C-alpha cells in the first residue's frame, strides 16, 4: 500500500480482555516495528521484525504482549489480560530494512483504552 495502515484506529476494552492490533506495512518493506506511545511521551520501542522473524523483542514489557508476522508482511500485536496501564497509542512503522535503512515510516496508530 501507499502507507502504513493500522486497524482499528480506536479500541476500547475492559480490563482482563484480549485485544489484537493489526499493521499492514508499506509494500516491499522488509522491516516492521511496533512502538507504544503514552500521553506526553515519545514512542517506546516494543519489537522489531526483519521478514517473518522477531529480530529484537527486548521492548515487550511482559509475557502478556506478543507479536507475529507469519508471512513477512502484515503483523498483529496481541495483548492478553489487558490492564489499565496498557492504555496508549500503539504505533507501527516499516522500513526497507538492511544496514542503512533506518528511516521509519509510521502508521496513524491504534489508540487502546482499557477501562
Amino acid at each position, binding site marked *: 500500500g501507499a502507507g502504513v495502515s493500522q486497524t482499528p484506529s480506536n479500541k476500547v476494552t475492559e480490563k482482563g480482555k484480549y485485544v489484537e492490533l493489526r499493521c499492514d506495512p508499506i509494500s516491499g518493506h522488509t522491516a516492521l516495528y511496533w512502538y507504544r506511545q503514552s500521553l506526553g511521551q*515519545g*514512542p517506546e520501542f516494543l519489537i522489531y521484525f526483519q521478514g517473518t522473524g522477531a*529480530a529484537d523483542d527486548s521492548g515487550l514489557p511482559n509475557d502478556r504482549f506478543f507479536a507475529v508476522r507469519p508471512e513477512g508482511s502484515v503483523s498483529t500485536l496481541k495483548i492478553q489480560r489487558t490492564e489499565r496501564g496498557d492504555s496508549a497509542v500503539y504505533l507501527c512503522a516499516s522500513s526497507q530494512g538492511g544496514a542503512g535503512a533506518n528511516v*521509519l515510516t509510521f502508521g496513524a496508530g491504534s489508540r487502546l483504552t482499557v477501562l
Partner: protein
Amino acid sequence: EDKVVQSPLSLVVHEGDTVTLNCSYEVTNFRSLLWYKQEKKAPTFLFMLTSSGIEKKSGRLSSILDKKELFSILNITATQTGDSAIYLCAVGGVQGAQKLVFGQGTRLTINP
C-alpha cells in the same frame, strides 16, 4: 541504557518567530539521529543526520548534529501556524539504527 533528552518540553511563540529545538543523547555505538514531526498521530520524517557539522535543510527547517558534544538542534525560521506539532528526536545505536530510541518530544505551538 540509551537515552535521548529533548528541550524545551513545550514552547509557545508567535507566527514569524524563529525557534531552536534541542536534542541531547547518550547511546552506545551511535549510528544516526532522526527528527520527526507529529501533528495528529503518525510521526512524519523530517531529517536523518549521521555526520557532524553537516547541515540538513528543507525549506524553513534545518538541522545539524554535533557528535563530539552529543547533541542536535532543529531550527525553524519564519514559523507558521502549520508548524504547530510535537517534534520528536530519535537515535539509533547499539542494536543498529532499526531500534530507534525516542526523546519525550517538544510541543511547539505557533500563535497567529
